[in-house]
């Protein structure tokens, strides 16, 4: 385990990273968001529970790094009509905890988020438990894994075409 002081410093850095990610998502800064990923990043939004096997069961999103890039490129065409016009978004992120931070290993972080989306259809509230694996790459924190477990992922969901 890390000493208390370095743990506090790390938590500060992780919190700043997660707030920055949230701002990039809310403000549709797609390229800046994509740059937060490591080369082996995995972006996962499970369906029908939080602990399904994504290799066997359908997920809402289960993107490897190239599919993350494809998702971003589609958003940037300006012809992805579900995001033309873009949803207006603001999210609150809280309960940020370091769940595992062994020296030399990925930093496992948990957080909760609540997102208010205003789109042509209506206003929608999304709520989720998030799990990250963060890693220092060239001195900067990067996401190697982000899992977004929506509270209502067992139900029928409206279109989820912004970055969650």
């Amino acid at each position, binding site marked *: 385990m890390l000493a208390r002081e370095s743990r506090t410093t790390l938590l500060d850095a992780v919190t700043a990273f997660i707030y920055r990610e949230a701002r990039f998502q809310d403000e549709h800064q797609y390229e800046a968001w994509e740059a937060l990923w490591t080369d082996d990043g995995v972006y996962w*939004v499970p*369906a*029908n529970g939080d602990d*399904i096997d994504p*290799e*066997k*069961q*359908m*997920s*809402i*999103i*289960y*993107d490897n790094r190239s*599919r993350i890039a*494809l*998702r971003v*490129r*589609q958003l940037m*065409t*300006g*012809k*992805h*009509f*579900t995001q033309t016009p873009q949803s207006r978004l603001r999210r609150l992120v809280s309960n940020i905890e370091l769940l595992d931070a062994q020296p030399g290993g990925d930093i496992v972080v948990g957080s909760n988020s609540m997102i208010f989306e205003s789109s*042509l*259809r*209506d206003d929608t509230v999304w709520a989720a438990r998030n799990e990250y694996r963060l890693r220092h790459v060239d001195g900067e924190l990067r996401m190697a894994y982000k899992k977004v477990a929506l509270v209502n992922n*067992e*139900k*029928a*969901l*409206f*279109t*989820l*075409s912004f970055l969650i």
Partner: protein
Amino acid sequence: MNVMPRASQWEELIRPDRVHGSLYSDPAIFAAELQNIWYRGWVYVGHESEVPKANDYIVKSIGPQSVIMTRDEQGRVNLLLNRCSHRGNQVCSYEKGNARSFTCPFHSWTFANDGRLVGYAFPDGYEGQDKTQLALGRVTRVESYRGFVFGSFAAEGPTLREHLGGAIETIDRLVRTSPEGEVEITAGFLKHRVKANWKFILENECDGYHPAFVHSSIFGVAESSIGKLYGGASTALTRDYGEGHTEIDLRPEFRKRDVPMSWFGTTAERLPDYTARMNAAYGEKAAREIMIDGTPHVMIFPNLFIAEIQMFVIQPLAVDDSVQHVTALQFKGAPDLNRRLRQQTMGSVGPAGFLLADDSEMYERCHRGVLARNPEWIFLGRGEKRERTDELGFKVGHVTDEVPSRGIWRHYRNLMETR
């Protein structure tokens, strides 16, 4: 129109080349559809592979109603209403599982998984009561074809085979993609809700006019060859099988390519295990033909859409509220193909899918659009003058023509005019 529609109104609302906007937005018409389509005709409910073992169950639906599909101890598939015969409480609260019986939590009435009432609490209060009169409600007729289970609430009427009509061949074609001749539904469903009438979904499934525009964003960035299939120069066809069933037949384009597995954007060499199993099962010549033609793109009226690599089930909840249930098709004996089918399905459909997020946006915008009045017609005349009849007698047109929509509305009018 705020009263139940009269039979004569249907011919006013549904014309050969146009339909009235209120058909998508009037709650009275939705109520009439529940009665004449969803609670009378054949509706797809589930697949036998979703309840593989004795006592397995899974909760499905017919329209807004919850239906429990069970496999009883004798191995028969039952469609039971999720409604206690006592006070109407839902007896099953889990999506799926394995249970010999369902006990209602309200007053502890217990039903066997074939629907029989087997017991109630404090039975002395029901002296002389015939338990057989208090079984769970059930879908009156249940039939399956190649594992696809359909239900009808009408005691009499066309058989399932009669309902499927010419479209039955598309299901035969589908299962041949498996070296063992069977589809399996095992990957779980994504459930995608839209604030739109269910018929926008129904009509879009075989609309070959929209992909070049609605999906241009993903076709462009993914360097997909799918766009060409729906272009002006495409030789692919739209087809109206009658009974409301419609198809986009992409085989003419795939046959021109003459490359096995090109329909799935891959090659036989990349799927060596699958190719070997297909050759062993069907012989090299037939296997090659199957692997060139690919799987069908067919909309089985009113709610089963087989879309090459995935399957959708359309569920209407209200006049302006619908759910698309979607899962990857899985073919028995084809694990390497199945893995890719799951990956492709997750990318393209569901709430965050590259394709379906945009389709669903169109459904919702159309729904808001048709609330406008004067002009209040939807124009469906594309390709009317160049429709022709194929060798089997079905209407066909260019892939971008509105043959499917016109076929759907012709059938719909028949159903709605029938008392």
